[in-house]
């Protein structure tokens, strides 16, 4: 089944991301003097993240037309919502609100994407 294949590929990519993240943190924690090496090790999790994105894109290309329409609408909702929230909070940061790490952006997008999928699927039931 298509959906099973997606979860397998996505799961493997996420596992790779988790492993690379843990290893890179351990290495950096042990101390790396060379700045270039420190930079490369710290961004190394981006490689499996690219694999995660690739599995998502592959799945969107594989699914049927209705599911693709639902995904596109959900992604548009996620994009718009993330833009509004991050821009809005950016303005708040300029008046003294606590700075939030960039790591918060992806979880925000993922939550909004999930909400978008939930409502998108309900519309067509």
């Amino acid at each position, binding site marked *: 089944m298509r959906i099973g294949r997606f979860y397998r590929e996505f799961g493997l990519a996420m596992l790779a991301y988790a492993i690379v993240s843990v290893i890179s943190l351990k290495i950096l924690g042990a101390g790396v003097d060379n700045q270039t090496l420190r930079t490369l090790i710290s961004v190394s999790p981006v490689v499996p993240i690219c694999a995660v994105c690739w599995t998502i894109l592959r799945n969107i290309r594989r699914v*049927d*037309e*209705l*599911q693709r329409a639902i995904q596109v609408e959900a992604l548009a909702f996620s994009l718009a919502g993330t833009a509004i929230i991050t821009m809005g909070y950016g303005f708040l940061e300029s008046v003294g609100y606590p700075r939030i790490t960039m790591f918060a952006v992806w979880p925000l997008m993922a939550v909004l994407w999930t909400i978008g999928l939930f409502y998108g*699927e309900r*519309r*067509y*039931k």
Partner: protein
Amino acid sequence: MKNRLKQLRAVHGLSQGALAARLDVSRQTVNALENGRYDPSLPLAFRIARLFDASIEDVFEDQATSSGKQKPRPDQ
């Protein structure tokens, strides 16, 4: 668009899942088509008509020419 998909499926003794497999779409898509919540693309409409050995007009009814109440589409 109104359609006779459910009737044709019943005549051919197909479940939604079986029809979905033959059309290479998800069961969710078949369900949405039958309930008039989704209109298929032209290639999918042709595949459906060919599967049931019917013309597209035999399967789908143009909303502009149909009579009676329609379930509103999500985008309306």
